[in-house]
C-alpha cells in the first residue's frame, strides 16, 4: 500500500515539474550548474574505478585461461564486451547512485527544511520545475558520456594490465576489434539513460519531501542511495532481458 502511495506521489511530482519555465535563462543556468556538478564531481571516482575494473577483468581472464588453448587476443575482446555491456554502465550506475543520488537528495532536503523551497514558491517560481527538472535533464545528458568514458578507461586499464601480464599490445588490440557488435554500444547507452533518470528522479523525490530536521535529511539521502542502487541493478536485468 505504502508503495502505491509513494509511487503516486512520485508521479505527481514528475507531472508538476512539467510547466513552462518562468524564465528560460534562469532554468538554463541552473541546468548548467547541475551538469557541472554531476560531471566534474563524478569524473575522478568513475575514472579510477573503471581503470582498475578493466585491469582486474583482464588479469582475471588471463589467469582463468591459464595455459588453455585460448588465444591471447581474446582478452581484448572479453574486456571490451564486459566493460561495454555490463561493467561500465552498472558499476558507474552504482557509483553515481551513491554520489549523485545522495548529493541531490541532501541538497533538496536542506532546501526543504530551511524553507528555501517555500521561498521559491512564494516568489512565484515553480519549485518542481526549477529544482527537479534541471537535475533530471542534467543527469540524462551527463551520465551517458560519463559511462562511455568509463568503458574507454576500463578498456585502457585492461590494456595496461594485459601488457604487464605479458600479452602483446598488438594482440590486445586485435582482440578489441574482434567480433565487434555496435549494438552493444546501444545497450550501454540505453542503460545509461535509464540509470540516469532513475537515480536523479528517485533522489529528487527523497529529498524534495523531507520533513523534520537534519537527521531526516541524512535518512533521505541514505534512502536515495539504497533505492537508486536497487533500481539500477533491477533495470540492468530488465534491459538485458529486453535487449538481448
Amino acid at each position, binding site marked *: 500500500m505504502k508503495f502505491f502511495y509513494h509511487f503516486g506521489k512520485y508521479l505527481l511530482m514528475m507531472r508538476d515539474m512539467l510547466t513552462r519555465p518562468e*524564465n528560460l535563462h*534562469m532554468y538554463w543556468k541552473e541546468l548548467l550548474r547541475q551538469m557541472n556538478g554531476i560531471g566534474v564531481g563524478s569524473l575522478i571516482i568513475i575514472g579510477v574505478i573503471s581503470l582498475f575494473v578493466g585491469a582486474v577483468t583482464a588479469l582475471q581472464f588471463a589467469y582463468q585461461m591459464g595455459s588453455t588453448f585460448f588465444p591471447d587476443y581474446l582478452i581484448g575482446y572479453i574486456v571490451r564486451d564486459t566493460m561495454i555491456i555490463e561493467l561500465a554502465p552498472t558499476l558507474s550506475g552504482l557509483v553515481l547512485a551513491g554520489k549523485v543520488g545522495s548529493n541531490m537528495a541532501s541538497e533538496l532536503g536542506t532546501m526543504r527544511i*530551511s524553507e*528555501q523551497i*517555500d*521561498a521559491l514558491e*512564494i*516568489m*512565484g517560481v515553480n519549485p518542481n520545475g526549477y529544482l527537479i527538472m534541471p537535475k533530471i535533464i542534467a543527469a540524462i545528458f551527463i551520465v551517458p558520456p560519463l559511462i562511455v568514458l568509463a568503458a574507454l578507461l576500463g578498456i585502457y586499464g585492461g590494456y595496461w594490465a594485459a601488457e604487464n601480464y605479458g600479452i602483446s599490445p598488438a594482440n590486445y588490440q586485435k582482440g578489441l576489434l574482434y567480433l565487434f557488435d555496435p549494438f552493444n554500444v546501444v545497450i550501454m547507452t540505453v542503460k545509461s539513460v535509464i540509470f540516469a533518470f532513475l537515480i536523479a528522479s528517485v533522489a529528487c523525490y527523497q529529498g524534495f519531501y523531507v520533513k523534520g530536521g537534519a537527521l531526516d535529511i541524512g535518512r533521505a539521502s541514505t534512502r536515495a542511495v539504497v533505492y537508486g542502487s536497487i533500481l539500477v541493478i533491477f533495470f540492468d536485468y530488465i534491459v538485458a532481458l529486453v535487449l538481448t
Partner: protein
Amino acid sequence: MIEVKDLKKSFEDKAILKGITTSFEAGKTNLIIGTSGSGKTVFVKCLVGLLTPTSGTITYDGIEFTALSQREKKDIRTKIGMLFQGSALFDSMTVEENVMFPLNMFSKMTAKEKMDRVNFCLERVNLVGANKKYPAEISGGMMKRVGIARAIVLNPKYLFCDEPNSGLDPKTALVIDELLGDITHEYNMTTIINTHDMNSVMGMGEKIVFLHQGYKEWEGTRHQLLESDNETLYDFIFASDFLKELRKGAGQSIKLSK
C-alpha cells in the same frame, strides 16, 4: 488590506486553526502573536498559500485568494514578499545573487538596472560590502537583512515575516524591527509579522492579533494591550512572575512611546 474569514486548518485530525476572522491593513505593521506552537507559522503559510486552508476565505484587496487557480495565485505572489524564520537564503548563491534572484526571474530590467536595484535594497537594509559573500559566511542578523532585501526587491504590496528576530540578540532584533516598520510606512505595504517577542510587540504593534489554542483570543493595538483585562493575554505578556510583580508595583502606569 488582507481580510481573513473563518479560517480553519487541520492536519489529518489535528485542528491547528479553528476559525479565525480578522483583517490586516495597508501601511501598518500587523502582528500575529502567540506562544510557540500556537499556529502562527501555519496561519501565515495559509495566508500566502503555502498551505491550503481546510476552510475559510482569504481576500487580498478584494481578490479572493482562496478561490484562485494555481496560475492566478502565482500572479498575486509576485506582489508578495516573505521573510522566513531561518532567512531561507539560497545557499548556492551569493548575497547579491540572492537579492537579484527575483529580478532575474521576473523583471525585464537590464543588467545595470538590476544591479542598481539590488544595491539600493541592500543599502536600504544597511548592508553594504557583503555583496559577494555566501550565506554561510555572514551572521544571522545579516542573513535576515538579506532576506528582507530579497523580499522587497520586487516592490511587494504585501510583506510577510515569520519571526523576523528569532535567534538574534536584542539589539540586532530591535534594528530589524525598526527596519521593517520603516519600510512598511515608506512603501505603504501591508506587513504581517509573526512574533512571540514582547519587545517587538510593544515596539511596533500597530495591530495585534493574539492566537491561543487555535482561536483569535484577542486583537487590538499595543496601546490597548496593556489595558486589556483578558487573562490569557495577560499571562502571555507577563510570562514571568518577575514581570507580574513589576506590573503590580508600577500599577497601570507603564507608558508607551508614541
